[in-house]
Every structure is written in C-alpha cells, then in structure tokens.
C-alpha cells in the first residue's frame, strides 16, 4: 500500500505512441483527463495528435444540456481530426493536410494542423480500423503521441490493435454508494487487464487427461442458445480451452454455467483476441473465475492510469481523496489520480 501517486499523468504515459482514453460511462471525466494531458504536453513543448471516436470540446452534453463540458485546448503545430465545419467554427488558423474519406454523422473527417493555439472541437473516425490508420498517419506527420479520446463507454479503440496504452476514467456517476463505484471500476479494470493466454500448464486439468482446445463457431457464441452450448460441451467432454474469434457476450457465459450436467465440474478457460471483445454487464471476470471460467486474452492492454471524477453531475459527489484511496486499495498496481484535485 501507500505507493506514491504522481501528481502528473504524462510521466506515466512515456513511451506510449497511441493512447486511448476510455470512460466507464458518460460524465466520468474523459475530456477533463484529456485536457490535463494536453496541458502537460503543452508545458513540455511536445507535439501531439488528437482524435475522438465521439466528439470533444462541445459546450454542452449531448443528452443532458444542463451539463457543461470542458474545452479542448491545443497548441500551434498540434495535429487533430475534426470536420470542416467544426474546424471553421473554432476560428483558429489551421492547415488542412488531407481529407480522410471517413464519413461521420457530423461530416467528413479532415486531418489538420493548427497554426495557432486555442480551443477546438474534435471529431474523428468512429471505427477502430479508421482510428488506427489515422493515428499512424499522425505519428508519420510528427506527433510524439496520439491521444484517442473515447465516447460514452466505448472501448473498441483501446484494442491493442489500435492503441498501445490506456487511461481509464471512472467516477461518482456510476453509483450513489462509493462501494458500488469501486466494485464497478474493479470489474472494468479486471476486464481491461485480462491475463495473457498462457500455454497449458496442467493446473486446470489432471495431467492424465488430454486437454482439448476448441475454436468455437462465431454464430454459436453470438446466439448463445443454452441447448446448443450444452450440446457442444457434451460432444467435447475433454474440452477445456475455448477459443473465440469475435465477441464474447455475457449470455454465452451464462449458457456455459447453466450446462452444469455437461460441465460436470470441469474448469474452462476462454481465450479471446483481446479484452475489447468481451461484453459483461452483470458480473466481472473475477466472478466467472470463481465459477470455474477463466477468461484470457491473446493480446493484452497496457493500463497506465485511472482518473476519477468525484462528482456526479446534477446529483451526488464524493470526497476526491476518499474515492481515490478506495479505488487504489481495491485495484493494486495502477496509479489513481484526480487531475483536478491532487490533495
């Protein structure tokens, strides 16, 4: 315990080329975190590239207009992805480097370089593959680090195929009880930090039985029909490693647990491509591990820090230090910061 928590984020992010910011819900403070990182980079005179899978720097919340949003301030020379209309609305001098051909509901995404410092709205590509291409392009054009801001609770852009670092934003908006906020944050962190799929080490299975690894049919996993899942387990009584190429939903995990007779006490490990392919709403990976289902990932995510917003807009608030300490106690190994309150 009592690890020294740095007051600044940028030292935690050194070596990261493309950083994804992911919030656990709306209003957990992603954009405030982004603004803090940008301010630190500006102070260090580091050129950055910024994109958002949603929209950033808008004045008011898109669902609840009573909530004011922070502005995003960039420096001269910084690269950004936005639409022509939003760039123009900023009133800032800029150079349009190229049109990306990526169409969004707000218009086509333009890659630009600012000629002067100021606040601007960011709106880049939504699809993870487009985000990755754009980040590569920004790095080629001289960005020292690309910041990929998330939207609502979307995680796809934090895939290791897109980003090589992650900052998670959590906050009071998740629940009225601090314990609930801590537990939901811990589940989300467990998911982001799924262990790397390891070679079979014999711990899960007596050595005399031969382990069978199965690659599952995508339709079977998505549809998650309890009878089909039970039939699969019946047909493969030795199967202990289930490999899933696409999405793993909670329905499928529940289907596995429901097939008690077919499982007959067997422990399973499920291997997914990366943590962004797993969709859990009710239970965290820890709970499934206790039921004998371990979830592992072929590629893992580098979680660098957790930031907190102790305020739930239009509702309650916690004391920042208490929330930080509670989360840090439950989630060892990750620095927990409030970028607005380091006291």
């Amino acid at each position, binding site marked *: 315990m009592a690890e020294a928590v740095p007051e600044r984020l940028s030292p935690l992010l050194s070596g990261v080329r493309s950083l994804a910011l992911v919030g656990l*819900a*709306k209003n957990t403070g992603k954009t405030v975190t982004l603004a803090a990182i940008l301010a630190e980079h500006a102070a260090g005179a580091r050129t950055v590239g910024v994109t958002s*899978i*949603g*929209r950033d720097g*808008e004045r008011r919340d*898109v*669902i*609840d207009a009573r909530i004011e949003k922070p502005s995003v301030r960039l420096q001269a020379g910084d690269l950004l992805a936005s*639409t*022509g*209309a939003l760039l*123009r609305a900023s009133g800032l001098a800029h150079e349009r480097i190229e049109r*990306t*051909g990526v*169409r*969004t*509901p*707000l*218009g*086509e995404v333009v890659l630009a370089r600012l000629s002067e410092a100021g606040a601007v709205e960011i*709106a880049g590509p*939504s*699809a*993870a*593959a*487009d985000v*990755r*291409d754009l980040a*590569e*392009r920004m790095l080629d054009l001289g960005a020292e680090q690309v910041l990929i801001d998330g*939207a*609502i*609770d*979307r*995680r*796809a852009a934090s*895939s290791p*195929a*897109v980003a090589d670092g992650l900052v998670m934003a959590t906050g009071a*908006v998740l629940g009225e009880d601090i314990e609930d906020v801590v537990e939901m944050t811990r589940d989300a962190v467990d998911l982001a930090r799924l262990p790397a799929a390891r070679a079979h080490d014999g711990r899960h299975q007596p050595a005399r039985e031969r382990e069978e690894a199965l690659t599952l049919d*995508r*339709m079977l996993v*998505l*549809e*998650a029909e309890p009878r089909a899942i039970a039939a699969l387990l019946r047909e493969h009584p030795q199967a202990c490693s289930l490999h899933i*190429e*696409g*999405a793993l*939903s909670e*329905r*499928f995990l529940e289907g596995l647990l429901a097939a008690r007779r077919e499982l007959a006490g067997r422990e399973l490990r499920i291997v997914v*491509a*990366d943590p*962004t*392919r797993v*969709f859990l*709403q009710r239970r965290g990976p820890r709970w499934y591990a206790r039921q004998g289902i371990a979830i592992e990932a072929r590629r893992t995510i580098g979680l660098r820090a957790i930031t907190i917003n102790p305020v739930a807009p239009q509702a309650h608030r916690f004391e920042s230090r208490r929330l930080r300490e509670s989360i840090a106690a439950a989630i060892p190994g990750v620095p927990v910061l409030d970028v607005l309150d380091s006291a």
Partner: protein
Amino acid sequence: MSADTPTAPRAPTAPGAPTAPTPPGAPTTPGARAVDLSRVRPYADHLDDGIVQLSFTLPVPYGLAARRAAQEWAAQMGFEHPEVVHYQELTAGYTHFVMFAESRQRVDYASLSEEGFDIEYMSEEQIEQFAAEHIGRPIVVVGAATGTDTHSVGIDAMLNLKGFHGHHGLEGYRAFETHNLGSQVPNSVLVARAIELDADAVLVSQTVTQQNLHVANLTELVEIVEAEGRRRQLILTCGGPRVSNELAKELGFDAGFSKGTYPHHVASFIVRELAARVESTTAAAAQGAGPWDVDAAEDVNG
C-alpha cells in the same frame, strides 16, 4: 432531421420562387437578389429580412404586463423589433404568445452542404433508380428494437410495408430486402442475424433517456460489431425520439434519426452511404494497399 414545419407567419410567396438558390461559391449579383448561401438568415416577406415566428408560453397571468414581458424576453434573446401578434390565456396564470421578431444573425450554409454534413433526401422513385444504378442488387437491412426496449412502433414504421403517414416502409421498395426482428432483441443476436444475412445495414430503435442503461445498450451494439470485425462493412443507424446526429456520433453510429423521420429519409441515407462505400472500396482495391486501405482493417479485426 426534418423538423416539423411551423405554419408560415405572413404566408410569404413560395420559397425560392423569386430567387432560385445559387450553387455554393457562385458569385452573387445584388441586382438579381441572388442568395449568398454562405450568409443566410431567415426569410418571411422578402429575402434577408431575418423575420422569425416565435411561439411560447410564460407562467404569468394574461394581460398587458404579460405582453410587455414577452417583448422584453425576446429582446434579451437578441431579437430586434419583437412584435406580439397573438396572445391568449392558456389557463389561469399562464399566457401563450405568438410573436414575430427579426434576427440579425447569419449562418454559413454553403460550407455545411459542401462537407458531407447533409443527407440529400430522395423520393421513393429516385431511391429505386439510384439503387438500381449504383448498387444493382437487393440491399439487405436488418432492424430491431434492441435490449429491453419493448417499443417496436418506430422500427415497424420504417421497415414494414404499411409504413406511416402514407409513406410505406423499406419493405415496400424493390431496392431493399428487409428483416424486422421485432422488440427486445439482444445485441449479440441482432449481430448474429446481420452476419448470417450478410446485411448491408442495421437499423435499431431505442428510447434514449438520461439513464446510462439506454445509451450503454446502443454503444454495446456498435462494440459487438467491432469485435466481430464488421464495422467498416456494416452501416449502423439508430432512431428514437431523442436521437440526433450529434448523439449518433458519440454512440458510434453512422446516422441518427429523430422525430419527423420518414422511411424515405432512412432509405436515402442507406443507399447513398452504401454507394459511397462501394466506390471507396473499389478505388482502394484499384490503388492497392495505401495508408487508407480498407483491407488493412483485417489486422484490427483479428
């Protein structure tokens, strides 16, 4: 999205009749009263008069003081020459007003229409023709009210033959092959159907409230499509009473449709977006691998 059209205050002559809109960027000739689309303001009696009609209620008793309060409020909003043309008591303590007022503000329409911000709506016949020319095969659309939403009325209005307000749904078009999965469909099941049917577009309806639950259900659909490696192929659209394009962008959808949407609006978007994707995929294939190569998505998609 197409807003409900308010009744015109002073019945101006048919809009556009005296002055046909000039293409963006065209020079404006003051004598010809051409519209400068980069600086437009509201139109009532004549071009550029900036006159708008306001309709609102104040929680004050009917009377001359109420009338004066409405004028002061409009002046505070920045309107010039606010004029109350009608006011009446709604119920004790409430007065409803209709006002005309002038706005000096202008807006740059030209740049917005140039930047792909707009969906150009087509009629049913135009959509059929466009699809035949640019797509040349049935466009497969899968729709559902997802998650816990039991309201399928929105999705039915867009997809089913019957449609609404005399506009039939996508099922009635030759260009579309529609599959309406109904309500309370889990996201993973919807994605399974879309993959199985090799769908071009998915349309979901969802009532969005300030509760995180509803938006989380919409973002989950987008994320499952990403996890299945289909995001670039599949057009994702959502509709609901509070779904704007701004919200659609946050949610990760390609378009959002709100109140006032008719099936041909959704159809226009889908055929144009699909045609654009077919075009860019063909162009990318012709050029070979480049920085924006669509096939490079394979790595991301596992």
